């Protein structure tokens, strides 16, 4: 158990017996009242988001999670398929709640899977990841406006807004939290 005042972003807690990821938390204190924390929680099973306000002194149940390095094999219509690289056991993670991860994961790469009582709670993708551009339109001739962008598609299906000098086959660094282009990677 932890005090609500000690909740931090990225922590997993149990709310009404359901595991939740803390995606935001703000300390709030009314002028003449007790301290509270305003948190944004994502139910990791259903993806539903809640914004409860909890008294700072109140106890909440923190979930003790484990991380299993696992190789991403492929995705079908409803699930991601992984193999635990320690036990070679294959398992699947339902896509519900993790839909936005799909275009950021590369088949064959290894990611840490956050597990709690054999329920996968999260897939950890490095904040900055390199992708290869698989399809890019050529820049329109004469288009030299500074800051002009175009959209390219990467090998995972990820679409990224990039500067117009990026070509098919280039490697680019992308912020996996925001989906924004960071820089071209020289190889």
């Amino acid at each position, binding site marked *: 158990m932890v005090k609500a005042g000690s909740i931090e972003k990225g922590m997993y807690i149990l709310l009404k017996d359901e595991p939740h990821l803390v995606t935001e938390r703000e300390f709030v204190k009314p002028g003449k009242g007790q301290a509270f924390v305003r948190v944004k929680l994502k139910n990791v099973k259903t993806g539903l988001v809640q914004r*409860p306000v909890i008294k700072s002194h109140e106890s909440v149940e923190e979930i003790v999670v484990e991380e299993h390095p696992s190789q991403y094999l492929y995705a079908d219509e409803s699930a991601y398929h992984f193999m635990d690289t320690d036990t070679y056991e294959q398992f699947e993670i339902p896509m519900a709640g993790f839909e936005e991860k799909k275009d950021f994961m590369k088949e064959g790469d290894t990611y840490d899977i956050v597990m709690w009582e054999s329920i996968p709670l999260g897939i950890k993708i490095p904040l900055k990841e390199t992708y290869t551009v698989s399809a890019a339109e050529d820049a329109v001739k004469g288009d030299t406006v500074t800051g002009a962008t175009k959209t390219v598609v990467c090998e995972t299906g990820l679409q990224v807004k990039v500067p117009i000098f990026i070509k098919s086959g280039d490697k680019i660094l992308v912020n996996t939290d925001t989906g924004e282009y960071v820089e071209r990677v020289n190889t």
Partner: protein
Amino acid sequence: MDREILRFRASCVREIRRFFEEAGYLEVDTPVVSGKVIPEPTIDLLNTTIHGAGDGPGTPVFLLPSPEFYMKRLVAAGSGSIFQFSRCFRDREPLSRLHSPEFLMLEWYTVNADYIASIETTEALLERLCTRLDLTASAAAAVSPPVLRMTIEEAFSKYAGIDLCACGETRALRTEAERLGLTPALDADWPELFHLILLSEVEQQLPVGRPVALLDYPAQVSCLAKQKAGTPWRERWELYLSGVEIANCFTEMVSPAEVAAYFKREGTELRKAGRPEQTDESFPDIYDTRHPACSGVALGLDRLLMVLSGSDSIAQVMPFTLRYGDAQEKTI
């Protein structure tokens, strides 16, 4: 910290000082240390020790959470209207977007005035800042008067569908909180339920494109604001700019008997919480029946600067953010 922000901070302080001087207020400068304080169980005090010249264990003292402890003594002694920029200290308010254990407060007391007069003074101050400072259009809109006045009763009805007057009992308010899907603590008392609903439902829905004052707080929320005669409300308002609570105002409670009753009640709470040493039992004696009517406003200057400069957190407008432990990395 860039120089632009330092200059902005300085020009804002300068305009505020000129505003109050021109309005006939006297600037004062009171200590931040005291051995005793006004009891406020919801505030955690920072403390330290004065050793004097001796070798003994020294005397524990507190860093004050607001300058009211000394400013109210000055008013009672006949200072007339006063203002102050004061460093304030509060423990268990971790460094975060809107909090810092040390911050700068602008506090002013106006004699022969009530809380409604103080809204008008605040509007004049905001007007001056809008005129004299170089603000972006959105920042100017967020602080430009008039201040939208909304009573707590109206706000609870509008944003939470609650008739507060019908919820004087803890059980009734709890039922409303649960109807809204909130999960109050099992032992939540009336003020805690009130604040839970205020933070969960009301604050989040306040208009952000213009200043808003929530007026007339329930008498059950204990504080040194005068009760509005014949009503269950206290003469108190809180100012919100861009949805952020910026200032708190009272028509000050100046009746010696009522202040003494507040000290007795809150002192008891602190004793129960194991913090009996804080209460200055002699404080109510500063009031006598000749004390002028008075209204006090406490305004978080770092938060005001944050809104005026269009920043996202107070850290962006402070010359330094406090460094202690690993708090900075964890919370900012």
